[in-house]
Each structure stands twice: as structure tokens, then as C-alpha cells.
């Protein structure tokens, strides 16, 4: 049984044929070629597969693709515009908040979504906001700092950062 799935991904309406038991993660990576979403644990614990669904973060590895009918999904590819990085991406680089980078798309989306929902989080709230993401390299301090810098408007709003 194949099934037609209609959803909005990164502001673009798409229709894709899927198996009813496909994971959102696989549809994004294999069918749509959006490789920025990573698979780490595959069981909802590491956050490498984080996407934003209807304005809230979710683990795409434990999300049924078929459930996404009509939903608005944002992946890491959404953030940079015309080759310009999003403030959160820029801040991660400036703060050395990544090493191998495998966890980074997930952390960046958690950070972005946190500030969308709570523009002025405390350090504690930032830690809570990224608590569903695991990094084996950096030790989190730089990641928290990266989110704080965006919160403190060290970067120009609207996604444009001039190099």
C-alpha cells in the first residue's frame, strides 16, 4: 500500500509517494534528498534528526511520515538564505560550538525554535531547550554560549549575516 503524502517542507508544497510505515527521517533524506537531517540513535534520544513541525521541534526518526499530511516542516536547509547563514548558524561557528558537526543541525534547530517560542531564555532555559540533543564532541558550553549570543542579538535579525 503506497500513499500520497502532501506537506510543506521549507515553505515549498510537496507531494511524495511513501510507504505508510516510513519514518519522516527517511522520507526527508532518501526521497527528498535533504541530507542535513542526520540519523544518530534512531530511537528519539540524541536529537540529530531534529526538525520543526508546525512550529515545534520533533525527532524525525520517531515520527511517522504519513502523519505529516498537511503539516509544515522545517529542516536545517531552511535556515540559510541566498547563501547567507542564519544567525544561529553563524553563532555556532563563531563560538566553536561544533567539532565533527554531526549533532549541529539538530542543535541549531533546537536553538532557533527555542528563541521563536521564548525570545529571552535564561541560561537554564537554554540548557533545557537543547536537552533533547546530544553532542559527543564539544561539551555543550560553547553551544549554550552560541544560543545566548543570538538571544542577545549579536547577529543581525532576519537570517542575513554578512561575511
Amino acid at each position: 500500500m503506497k500513499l500520497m503524502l502532501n506537506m510543506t517542507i521549507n515553505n515549498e508544497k510537496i507531494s511524495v509517494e511513501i510507504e505508510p510505515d516510513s519514518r519522516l527521517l527517511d522520507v526527508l533524506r532518501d526521497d527528498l534528498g535533504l541530507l542535513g537531517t542526520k540519523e544518530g540513535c534512531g530511537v528519539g534520544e540524541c536529537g540529530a534528526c531534529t526538525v520543526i513541525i508546525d512550529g515545534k521541534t520533533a525527532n524525525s526518526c520517531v515520527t511517522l511520515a504519513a502523519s505529516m499530511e498537511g503539516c509544515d516542516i522545517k529542516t536545517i536547509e531552511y535556515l540559510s538564505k541566498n547563501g547567507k547563514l542564519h544567525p544561529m548558524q553563524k553563532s555556532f561557528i563563531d563560538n566553536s560550538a561544533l567539532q565533527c558537526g554531526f549533532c549541529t543541525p539538530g542543535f541549531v534547530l533546537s536553538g532557533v525554535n527555542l528563541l521563536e517560542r521564548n525570545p529571552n531564555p535564561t541560561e537554564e532555559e537554554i540548557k533545557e531547550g537543547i536537552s533533547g540533543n546530544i553532542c559527543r564532541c564539544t561539551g555543550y558550553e560553547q553551544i549554550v554560549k552560541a544560543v545566548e549570543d543570538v538571544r542577545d542579538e549579536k547577529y543581525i535579525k532576519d537570517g542575513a549575516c554578512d561575511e
Partner: protein
Amino acid sequence: MLNYFRPKTIKECLECITDDRVYIAGGTDLLVEMRNGHDLSKKTLIDLSHIPELKGVKKIDGGLEIMACTSHDDLVLNKDVNKSLKVLSDACRTVGSPQIRNMGTIGGSIGTASPASDPMPALMLADGSAVIINKKGEIREEKLEKFVVKPGITTLKNDELILSVKVKSLEDYKQSFFKIGRRKALAIARLNFAMAILKNKDNTIKDIKIVVGAALPVTKRFYDIEKQLIGKKLTEKIIEKISKDISDQVLEIAGPRKSSEYKIPVIKNIISRMLKDMEV
């Protein structure tokens, strides 16, 4: 072949129910099971995520009705829940991670009957009962203590669907939730507790409710101990006695295990600390 349905109303959903039905709401548990080999290929998968009637919190006489597909995050934020049953939003705030809270639902957390459920102690504290509808449209209500039979097993029959959970308002009570997990974030509860207390003017106990979760195979309200406390004051001596009685009972029910040596004194200390904190 896997059959998949995505009903838009409860009525449509009931029509889809077959003997081999498997429900999916947030997916946070089912997709992990699928990865672990749970074979759905010959099943009927019913997707509950597109039924607006199954979402949200309604005020009912003396309490709230929480529809089954309401997410943990919605309960953290919901004004009525924060007002009438703060302990439930506190419990939901400790579930999984932000991502899991956004997707996971209250119905899922009851339906899977995981002993580590965080909302469960808070729901039982508020005399929670599951509201269940069957394929014929008949509705039954069952206290959560009865509904959860043992880990992973509930009384839900194949032709039934969880509609909601009804809870009493504990607005006038002092409420408290406490959890110990392995890691702060993502912690799956190893021990969790919920309590509520209502005092008379003279500081004696008018009503008290005590629930112990994750330490036990099935979350438990300590009705017998609660009853003994009505009319008493929470003196040091009484607190000492209750916390000992409860931890003894936990040991008796859960049976001695390797972890008991650690868990039992911790349970005793936490209960005594929670009671003391509610005293001030």
C-alpha cells in the same frame, strides 16, 4: 499488507477499528518498537494524529477532561491544567526531551502502561480515570488504577479507543511532583512521586494524596496511609512513620532486587522531604 487509516473524526476512527488495529498518535513509542522488530506488516495502523476532537483540555464539573491526543507540551502550557492540577504540568515538563514532549501524547503515555510514565502519578493523584469508547460507540470510564493492569498491559480491548482522561481539580491543594532519572535531560524516571495535601485552619490534614510511580511495576496510590493521616498534623514523628511505611510497602510489592539497597532508603528520604516541604 499494512493497512493505514488517518481518520478525521472519532466516528470515522471507530469505523476503522479492526481486531488487528494498532494506534499511532505521536509515534515516539511505536516507532521505537517498530525499530526493535515490532512487525506491523499485517496490521491495521490507525493514525490518531488528525482528529481535532481528540485534542485539548475541557473544563468539566469539578475538574478537567484531557483529550487523549493532547501533547505533553500542551499540558505544560495549558492554563487550566496549571491552575487546577499544577502537579500534572510539572510532571509533563519532566517527560523525555522538548522534542518528545512536543510529539508524545497523554493517551499514549497511559495506553503504553509504562511503569516509568511521569504523567501517571499526577493523574492518579487527581483520581484520574480513562474514558474509553468502543466500536459500537459505547462509553465506559475506568479508574487508572484499574485500567493499568501491569507493565505494558491495560484493560483496553481491541475494539476500544481511549478518548480522554478525566481528573479532579486539586486547585486548593498544595501539590508536588518529584523525579529521579538517570540523566537530567531525557531522563526516563527511575523513581517518581506525586503528593497533594489540603489542610484545615488548625493545620491538621483535611485530605492528603500520595502516589509512588516508577519504583513500582504499576503506579500506586497509598489510600490506606492517606486515610490514617486525616485529622492529624504532619509532625516529624508522623512524617518519619509515613515515609517508612511507604518505603516498606514499596519493598514488599516490588520485591527485593539488586537496586533495593539504594532505592528503598532514597524513597524514604524523598517522601519525608516532600512532606516536609509541603509543611512550610
